[in-house]
């Protein structure tokens, strides 16, 4: 499944680029990302956790930067496995940053594979979820670009550290988009669940 888009953020491209490589910022911006640490120059590892309603999605993942042309382009591969759900996820992403007036134009292209039980169960939910995840990420990242890198570890985060020269997020900034979502807003997995419920008793 391929998707991609572009968006502009109110920050210089070098700032934007650095934020992309900053583990705490990305942890805060990626919906559902509850752990993320950089293990060396090119490797990250983390965990995507959602324990909502009746589906438990818990995937340890690793990410590798496979191409870096700072501050213009970064290519990365993320791979995770949820053993209990018998599913794995792989994302191959290419991200480019170009100056655009006072801000930057971010263009990304992703190829997402969802293999196993989750992947077997239809693409509409995945498509829809992808759209949702994209939207949430862009919102959060735009906020991060305004506020700068995230310093404070989020409550469930393990091993997240503020990067050098980090600026504290202003108190008004929400810690992470997922948490800022209204109470009733369903997580993608809850939607997935609801979707299954819907198709059986349509």
């Amino acid at each position, binding site marked *: 499944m391929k998707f991609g888009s572009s968006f502009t953020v109110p920050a210089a491209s070098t700032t934007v680029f650095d934020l992309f490589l900053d583990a705490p910022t990305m942890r805060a911006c990626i919906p559902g990302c509850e752990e993320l640490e950089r293990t060396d120059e090119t490797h990250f590892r983390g965990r995507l956790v959602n324990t909502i309603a009746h589906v438990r999605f818990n995937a340890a993942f690793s990410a590798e930067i496979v191409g870096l042309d700072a501050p213009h382009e970064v290519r990365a591969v993320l791979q995770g*496995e949820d*053993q209990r759900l*018998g599913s*794995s996820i792989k994302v191959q992403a290419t991200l480019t940053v170009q100056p655009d007036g006072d801000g930057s134009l971010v263009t990304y292209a992703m190829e997402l*594979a969802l293999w*196993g039980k989750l*992947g*077997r169960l239809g693409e509409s939910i995945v498509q829809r979820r992808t759209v949702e995840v994209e939207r949430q990420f862009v919102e959060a990242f735009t906020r991060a670009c305004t506020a700068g890198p995230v310093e404070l570890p989020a409550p469930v985060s393990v091993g997240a550290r503020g990067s050098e020269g980090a600026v504290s997020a202003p108190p008004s900034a929400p810690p992470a988009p997922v948490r800022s979502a209204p109470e009733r807003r369903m997580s993608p997995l809850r939607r997935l669940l609801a979707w299954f419920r819907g198709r059986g008793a349509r």
Partner: protein
Amino acid sequence: MTETALREGGEEPAVGARWQRAAARGKVRGTTKYVADLPVPPCAQVAVYRSTRPHARILAVDVTQAAALPGVQAVVTGQDLFALLGERLLTGPAFADQPALAYDRVRYVGEPVAAVLARDLATARAAVDLIAVEYEDLEPVYDVETALKGEFFVHDVLRPSSVFGDLSHLRGKRDTNVCYEYNLRTGDVDAVPTDGVTTVSGEFWSPPVAHVPIELPCTTAWVEDDRLEILTTTQTPSYVRQAVADLLDLPLNKVRVRTSVLGGSFGSKMYDRLEPLAAALAWSQQTAVRLVATREEAFLLTTRHGAGVTSSMSADADGNIVAATADVAYDTGAFADVGPRITAKSGMVAAGPYRVENAWIRSRCIYTNKPSAGPFRGFGVPQVTWSHESLVDELARELGEDPAEFRRRHLLREGDEAPMGTVMHSADFVGCLDAVTDEIGWTTPYEKGEGRWRRGRGVAVGMKAVLTPTIANAVIQLNQDGSATLMISTVDMGQGSDTIMPQIVAEVLHLDEGSVRVVAADTDTTPYDTITAGSRSTYHTGNAVRAAAEKMRDKLVDLAAQRLGVAASDCKVTSGGVMSTTAQETVSISDLMHGHFGARGTTLTAEANFTTSWQPYDHETGRSRQVTEHWFAGAVAVEILVDTMTGRVKVEQLAVAGDVGRAINPTLVEQQLTGAAIMGIGHALFDELVFDQGQIVNGTLLDYQLPSVRDVPAKLTAHVIESAHRTGPFGAKGVGETGILAIAPAIANAVRDAVGVRITRLPLSPERVLEAMTEAGVS
């Protein structure tokens, strides 16, 4: 059409009669026992851990947690089995490339890696969720284009498995994704002059589809003393016995494979499905195991090959077809299965059933990292028929000729040599075409419509060779009371072999309807039979059955001659028994046997073998004087409506015809034709397995669409054409696949007729039709 003539004395002949299907009432009430319904010893229930990666090296399999779950009896990994069986773990009808459990590498999402044996299925499934596998990803190959680049390989080495005669020429290879290539060279397509020649060409695509017999695959295996017994849903019991004997290194008499009537198959229950895994688990654990595929798992077991055909057809100024080319690529997925045979048998008919002087065909079987493709009703031929029947239609239109008439002019006739060098016999293409075009009133004008709904008509012809060479055996046991028991390894999957084989016996021995019973295939008692597939049984097993019945008849005649003191030549079998003209006496079978053996309940046995002869095709030219024992000829004509607002195609009328040589049971033949047509409508309009990066995304019956009662045309007729085959039993040959070959192109040709667009990719979904109309500026 041959009407059945009454035999002497007003006796109804058995061959040609519309006998009621065997076990009809049991099937309607559900009392007929399928494999899963039969009693078996107490079993461990098995659930399978499946790969979540399309292509990866297995680094480690951690089963500690799974094994510790209460109720779990054993957890077996591919590595465990490999340690025990070595490379014997790899099976397959063409190449030994399919491990019962993956041990070093996984090659598709869903490939079995480990199996849990537990006291119940819920426990087994819960344990599967506790298995952790560590992978190292390898570059996946998702499609044939990538596979042909040869950068990454699904298999490093290919080792032929040497099970079948027609595949004995396979050789080991390495570093290629092409496991087989068939080439046909007839005449010289390059030498065809271009002056005055009209050429049409296209790139055709048939997607992978799923068989979806409603009965789920089920295999139970257990150890009894030093033997392995298997009760399984298979249409190839003889093959399974050999494969399992090889796997476990057992003599053939220590493996027993049984089956029952099948709840449909269409090619899905063949070769290595659940059986090698069940056998390996039962043998390695010395226990009884039961494997039942869920519907989702069944989608992973086998599919029909997705196939691309890049092809052309040319006619000279006089309208003669002077050249045909086809470059065919079959996507066989992770395992070859019987893909090489499919590749050859379809490649040889890719030019169509026409007189074509010059033909160039290349047909290749290509590995990718997807679930394995195998045999499916039509055996690869519908995919090439899709190409040649679209091309010939377009060629006729280019030349300003009527598509049916153009075909009629060029179709192969009795005695013609087909492009692959074999002479045609008992393949009445013209008769089939006439029957269907007459039925829909092809030459009568019709309202095409101008508003939202446009009407169109289309026709197509299909050609397929029967599987050759093959071997069939039959044993008849005649019981003293005049009833008979027939032992064959042909499996009734709904095609009706349990009905027509008794009709053949009854015809020879003058027995009544219901007096011959077929024993369910059991390798302990029923003799070797190559396979129940490829529409081969009526002809091959039918011939063995007929020969065995004739031997039985001779035995009865000898007994009667002895008893009555007359010459054997004076005796003949009639419905009342054996009659002697000289003695003016008829002795019933019952009296004859009672008299001979001096006891009631005795049996008399006769057996026969039937093996076809063939001439292997030349590997340079793909030609052979006898590449097949016989041909199937079929034709389809349809009248359709296209909703120009939604793009939906509605088949209003469909006529399907097949040359069956001679219909042993016309009712069953008609059902095979209409049933295949309905399945074919699905393939034409919506039936499709959708993949995303090697993952099936519509693998449940909530998303995977099968034709329902609503998809059946208002008028659907079957036309049985009988041009008797000189060596068929009573002139008969099979019919299981004939009806499906030409459905999709007939419908596409009708869409072309209705709205003027030529669609080359299946299925003809409403979106695709509407897109093509928009592109062509049709509103």
